[in-house]
């Protein structure tokens, strides 16, 4: 199971990196969110995908899945939500002000204020 997860996480990373390397800002943001999806799945996979009950003590099971990575992922998800929403607003503002979403045209010019 870990193998299939690793393969699909690899695909997510590859697509994410490809999108980040493109010129359009919106595609870059999509790339970063795919990258964070891959990261969260990796956190889940790296704690081994053993079968067990959901980590609720009311389940009264013999074995539970590891609760720690789930807490880490939850933390990481809200952080990346915050960053992504800020990034979207920033991109919107930049589009209004700079009039382009093409990264090639967002290079620095020397004598601009």
């Amino acid at each position, binding site marked *: 199971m870990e193998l299939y997860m690793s393969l699909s996480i690899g695909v997510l990373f590859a697509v994410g990196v490809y999108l*980040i390397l493109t010129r359009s*800002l919106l595609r*870059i943001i999509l790339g*970063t969110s795919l*990258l*964070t999806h*891959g*990261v*969260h799945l*990796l*956190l889940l*996979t*790296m*704690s*081994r995908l053993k079968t067990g009950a959901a980590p609720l003590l009311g389940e009264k099971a013999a074995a539970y899945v590891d609760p*720690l*990575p789930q807490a*880490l992922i939850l*933390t*990481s998800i809200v*952080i*990346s939500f*915050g*960053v992504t929403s*800020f*990034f979207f607003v*920033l*991109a919107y*503002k*930049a589009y209004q*002000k*700079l009039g382009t979403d093409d990264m090639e045209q*967002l290079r*620095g010019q020397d004598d*601009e*204020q």
Partner: protein
Amino acid sequence: MTNLAVLPIVTPLLFGVLLFFVRYRIRLQMGLATAGTLATLIFSALLAHTVSKDGIQVLHVGGWEAPYGIPLVADMLAAILVTISSVVTLACLLYAFHALDDERKRNYAFPLMMILLCGVNGSFLTGDIFNLFVFFEVMLLASYVLLSLGGGRIQLRETIKYIVINIIASSLFVIAIAYLYSITGTLNMAHIAQRIAELGQDGLTTTVSLLFLTVFGLKSALFLFFWLPGSYSAPPAPIAALFAALLTKVGIYSIIRTFTLIFPHQPQITHEIMMWLAGLTMLLGALGVIAYWRIKQILAYNVIVSVGFILFGVGVASEAALSGAVYYLIHDMIAKALIFILGGAIISIAGTDKLREISGLIHFRPILGWLFFLSALALAGVPPLSGFVGKVMILQGGVQAKAFVLVALGLLSSLLVLYSVMKVFINSFWGETLLSEGEEKSTGKGALLPSLILAALVVGFGLGAEEILAYVRQAVEPLVDPSIYIEAVLS
């Protein structure tokens, strides 16, 4: 056990949250922000004093014992860095009172600076690797907003680049944590270190350590510094000074912590790579330093050179070199804030940061001019000032480790740094005045108080090197012998 270790984190957080509620009362904001930073400074100094008396202070948050809860670990290194970052933030705040426009003051600039300090202090004090990631994000989110605050064209453009780089670096950080958790099964840094020492640092662990080096190298501008010159020249001077003094230093601290505590077992691979990256950083940074004729860019590349220099000391990893690195780290936080504040004052007086258009400021701003001269000498490491001691110890360690090429690079970069800041000094302060009295864009008076505080520290740290070195030696002890740190946390 006391709660002292949590106060440098909680105090700026509390005051930061408080400041959000008094948005339109700028005077009240200024008073509260000063009070909050002063309180943080007092608590940090108290913490450093306690650590020097009673050894490493560990606070198990929530009362959960070591590997299960999050510990806050204040060893001497963390305590010193927390104290210095409070001093630097205080100076930048005092400058910001004068240099920031009302628009920015109303739009949460001060609360964000407090939150930034909270993130920085938290990163220094935490003993849990995932918690370190969270405090990194606290710091970074505040820095995104501070960087883009005001919404100028350059700021928006540079924030986009800065944010993309940091999202990628943070993703790599979580990946590295996931791998490390899969190898060791724990997140507590002392516990991780213990388990890796037991298992032995095999190829897989070394690979993960290189991933950490990449992550922290991106944050601290070690060789992977391409994002830094643009981002650090976009925001207004007080915010740039805060960034230059604190942000990269957190990355350096994380490299010091991880590579002395968790991954010290394969130095022929990891530390060798780190040293060559540091050498390249010094070289490329020094090239950038001499290449430009704009104050902002020259200062930004100066940040990069010193990062390379400190990490050269960390890479050598002998006791002398580590003491030098810690001393230079402390010096550099103060000196970078000082020179960015003075650079900001020059730019605000002349109305431009192009060196060729500024001239003869010394005729009507003598104090500012001599302060700049002093800080330029301190940056280059001229003997009575604070930059000297650290530099000598790092180079001494480098010579003992027979890394002569890198020592030569270090000396060369010092020379070029001196040339670059003297270029700024000579061009902007000497020569004929282009501006007549009353024609200058601003008085630059707001920069005097904070830069006098920082300059006094620079001189004091140079003259009182014996006293400071006693603290630095205590800070280096757990770096050379990680078992001290591990026992303090896990016992």
